[in-house]
């Protein structure tokens, strides 16, 4: 069953097409890596998917619906984007309490997710004083606040130290073991190779390859395949 579907998605900024006719499906209950060089259009595709950017044409749907049509979306989809939606001068806890209130989620759940991402110690610290990795954990805490079945993560490993990356790996595994669908973009190919079930590779807004990681890699490593595929397209 497909959880997420991009259908001929086009997003144009001026003359430049950031996403150019992207069609792809993400299977439910699997981890899908969303890969591509800098500027390939990953973040843009994900923004269209969650309704923050309006597609120029085509569509990006979750559970066959526009994000905007989802009932209380936080309980169905958790999102981490490259821009974090948190107020710098509020504590991590208060930031999450604001989000929780609007989704009808209790404050005790806020403390629960802070514990899950190991931020309890820093919960009362202002967000602007967080390290990069702590901010990333806070974003992840926000994504799982509503205990959603689908996670959309744009470079969640960004800024994490080795211990943080190991932690994130465990975190994603645990989420996957609960049967969640995860769409995760990353540049850490070695890490992705060990984590994901499927991959989607795009370059210059266009789909280059998609399928199970085994099929896409063939011989060698994910990095080999990635470089071969993205170079060939240039």
């Amino acid at each position, binding site marked *: 069953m497909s959880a997420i579907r991009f259908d001929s998605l086009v997003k144009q900024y001026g003359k430049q097409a950031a996403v150019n006719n992207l069609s792809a499906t993400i299977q439910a209950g699997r981890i899908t890596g969303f890969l591509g060089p800098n500027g390939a259009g990953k973040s843009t595709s994900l*923004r269209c998917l*969650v*309704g*923050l*950017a*309006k597609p120029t044409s085509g569509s990006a749907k979750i559970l066959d619906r526009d*994000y*905007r049509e*989802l009932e209380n*979306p*936080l309980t169905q989809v958790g*999102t981490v*984007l490259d*821009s*974090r*939606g*948190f*107020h*710098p*001068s*509020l504590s991590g806890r*208060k*930031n999450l*309490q*604001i*989000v929780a*209130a*609007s*989704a*009808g989620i209790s404050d005790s759940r806020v403390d629960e997710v802070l514990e899950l991402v190991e931020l309890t110690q820093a919960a009362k610290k202002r967000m602007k004083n967080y390290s990069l990795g702590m901010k990333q954990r806070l974003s992840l805490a*926000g994504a799982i606040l509503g205990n959603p079945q689908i996670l959309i993560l744009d470079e969640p490993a960004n800024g994490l130290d080795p211990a943080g990356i190991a932690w994130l790996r465990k975190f994603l595994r645990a989420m996957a073991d609960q049967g969640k669908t995860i769409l995760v973009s990353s540049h850490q190919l070695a890490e992705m190779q060990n984590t994901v079930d499927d991959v989607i590779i795009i370059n210059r807004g266009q789909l280059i390859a998609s399928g199970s990681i085994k099929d896409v890699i063939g011989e060698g490593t994910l990095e080999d395949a990635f470089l071969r595929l993205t170079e060939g397209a240039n």
Partner: protein
Amino acid sequence: MLALVKSEWRKLLFVRANWGLLIAATFISALSVAVAPFILDAGEAGALLGLGIDQTAAIDATYANGISGYIFAIILGIMMMAGEFRHGTAVATFLTAPRRGIVLTAKLAVAAIGGLLMMLISTGISLIAGYVVLLGFEDAAQPSENLFVNTMIAAAISGAVLGVIGVAIGTLIRNQMLAIVGALVYLFVVDPLLLALWPDTGQFLPSGLITAMLSIDISAPELGFDTTDYLPALTATLVLLGYGAVFAFIAIATSLRRDID
């Protein structure tokens, strides 16, 4: 909807800058009430207006300064909306509630409550400050009968309306600094200029409307400013709300449709 109102309410209370606005509004209005008797008593200014501290009109005018914090109600509204774009919290806000019109409605409601409370507090404290200061003037006259009640009503209504207008401005102009500076420049420079150039239309311009609204039942020509040409308070309030509605409508139809990054 109730959940969104609760969330907006939390934003209002959690963000310290909002408390700063409340303090600033209280300080400015209390100060302007507290110094007025001294200016009147100094003779020259009072004589210029033909008013002395022993006249009811002068005392009324003194207390009327208690609503001077209204500009902070607009700034509060602007910051509630434009601040979301400034700090990027708009992303979290609209991920949680992707139907933007409903979010805006909740925000407008909370801005109205916030502006109302801000004005009630700052005006209330100012009236008390004025009362205390006037105790020191033995020949001070009594204020007119319903002055305190009418001033508080004017404060409440103006606070709510201006909070709403602030949000509408912040939706249209996402740059918080630009929105605030723009609102101030408009109110204190452009609007008076238009008023000077075309006096007849003045009563329909925001400043004229705000003044008219603030002067609910406490305006009197002998106070030195002639508000006889202004619209009745209720009409002014409605016209101003009309402006707010038009702004909010334009905002929903244009700015709120734009991408959020």
